[in-house]
């Protein structure tokens, strides 16, 4: 038994110090890490693909009118699975390497996005105009006052 205690001591000594001084030293995450959700609102066309696949339904879509869509992301419910990044054809949403996203305010984790959409002349629902020229014709696109 003394023998095994001696071995245990050796094992512990050989391991040495294994703890880090974090948060007093930075611990950057490695590429591929699924961290904070970032949305590039310029690239987002409002297609709603991310809302369709989101397992926690933290992306909600409201069509205020046939030409006006609001996308709300309640990221306090986000489980960082990265499905939105997978399905986004426009590269408008991705998960970056930042993991220090704990906050005392829910509004820090809330992204609201207002989009002017094309309106389908047959069904009347919002759709993403297929080309930039069509997007220029979208109602409200050149307006500067709040809708």
């Amino acid at each position, binding site marked *: *038994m003394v023998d095994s205690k001696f*071995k245990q001591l050796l094992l512990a000594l050989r391991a040495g110090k294994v703890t880090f001084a974090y948060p007093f030293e930075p611990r950057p995450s490695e590429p*591929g*890490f699924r961290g904070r959700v970032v949305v590039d609102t310029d690239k987002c066309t409002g297609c709603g693909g991310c809302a369709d696949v989101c*397992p926690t339904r933290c992306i909600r879509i409201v069509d205020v009118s046939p030409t006006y869509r609001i996308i709300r992301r309640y990221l306090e419910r986000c489980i960082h699975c990265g499905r939105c990044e997978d399905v986004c054809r426009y590269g408008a949403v991705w*998960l970056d390497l930042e993991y220090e996203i704990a906050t005392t305010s829910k509004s820090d984790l809330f992204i609201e996005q207002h989009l002017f959409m094309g309106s389908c002349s047959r069904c009347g629902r919002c759709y993403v105009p297929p080309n930039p020229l069509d997007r220029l014709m979208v109602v409200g696109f050149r307006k500067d006052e709040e809708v």
Partner: protein
Amino acid sequence: MVTIEQSTEQINQAVAALQERLGEKVRAIEQPTPHRLYVTIDPDVVVQAADILFNDLRARYLISAGMDKRPLNGGFEVLHFFAFDRANVRCALVIPLSGDPPRIPSITPTVPAAGWAEREFRDLFGIIPEGHPDPRPLALPDGFPEGLYPLRKDFPYDYKPPLDHSKTFPFKEPPEGTTVVTVGPFFPVLEEPSQWRIFVDGEIVVGWDYRGFYNHRAIEKLGDSVLTYNQVVFLAERICGICGCVHSTSYCQAVEEAAGIEVPLRAKVIRTLILELERIHSHLLWLGLACHILGFDYAFMQSWRIREPVMWLAEYLTGSRKHFSINLVGGVRRDIKKEQHQRTLEVVGKIERETKELADTLLNDMPLIARLRGTGIFTPEEVRLTGAVGPTARGSGIAIDVRKDHPYAAYDLVEFDVVTQDGCDNLARTLVRVYEIFESVKIVRQCIKMLQELPEGDLMAELPEEIPPYRHGMHAVEAPRGEVFHYVFTGENNRPYRWRVRAPSYQNIQAVPVMFKPGTTIADVPITLGSVDPCFSCTERMEVIDIRSGETKVLTEQELYRLSREKTAELRKQLEGGA
């Protein structure tokens, strides 16, 4: 390796036995693949059929599932699942039921392992198992309104009925002259609340009662009413915080089986690799916690130190240290690229070396071994009757391992041994877990070798436009704690019609009372509970009620640990004195 011929023979034997003994009562036999058998029978012969499968043909009981099929054919359905482990066959007894409330003879007197499953479908579907030896509620909270059954299709997923708080759970009456030791149910620090009432005479355990399901979150309901096939994957992964990937893999495989999707080989190998990394970290975590309970914090610290690099490796490979989110129906989401192979090999190599060193010192530590040896005896026959799985069963010399018996993912392409121990006690179950770490390392190495040979990029199968509705799929995965079983009955609207999950602890916790053999003391209770690897939350707080004086005393986690540790210290003194 099991061949198709053998399994066909087993199926023939089962079918012949059922048809001969039940005759006309067997309504239909379906065999969608050589490894699956669905036998539809009349409700009045279900006990006979279960007896044939369980006792005559020695099939292992898996789980039962209720189903509300009223929107489809106006009735209910119960499925009892059995497995023929040596022949790679899983068999389901399908019993259509009519009437409301539907009634079915209980199979629990014949198959004791079905106890909880039958109580659960009674609670959630209102299907009454007649003749059940323990007809108390299981899953529903105390005071849930009568006549409301949450998993029925007409119950909205977001409806929260008012509870009658005056009702309490009908606990078992303790035997005359015993003291009740209550462990649980609410723990502010750790997860998974459950309540264990242990009846003790002096210090000796003489009986027990269990009340769990305090944290039943209706995950199955969400799966069949709100989410879509690929969203359920991420919910399934979050069923367990330690072995999540096994649930998502098992669910994906069940859907893939129902839809007839063939997963690319590279995706299968990646699943295998990730599952083995999960097993390594889970077993090291368990080893640390078991030693912690016994008051041996040195091993707790060391095994968690050894474990940490696996978590970092998982984060490096999948993007998250625990919820890997790597599975989808049809394949995996991320490739393990060439430049990641070397680091994977280095990490598992280091873990193998360090675990070996640690195991070497621990297994020569006399007080530790003395605490484990001879406690929590669990005989092979008891394993069969309770349906225990995983290291709990393998510690009793029963070589059941889903990876070998029902190969899934790439397990038929890798070589490894099923670790068994004949001790039947806590020590045997500990040894199984320690040796399994080395087998897992072996598998990880072979997976990396296969990944090096396979072409990169082929990760997802071509999915059909729609997953065909109303088909069965059942699949299991060997989790660190035992077999995880998922059953999916596909439905319309891109979501399962019914999704049934059975975690290994579901059967293993039912097996704990039989491990309390005469002579077990309170100090042995934590490690015996621990030896089946449930979550240790149960030891957070405990209450002692002395029936003779009516006095109530609340013990904390620390005091329970103290009892356990004092016994270790006492043993150590005895051993030193003797030597």
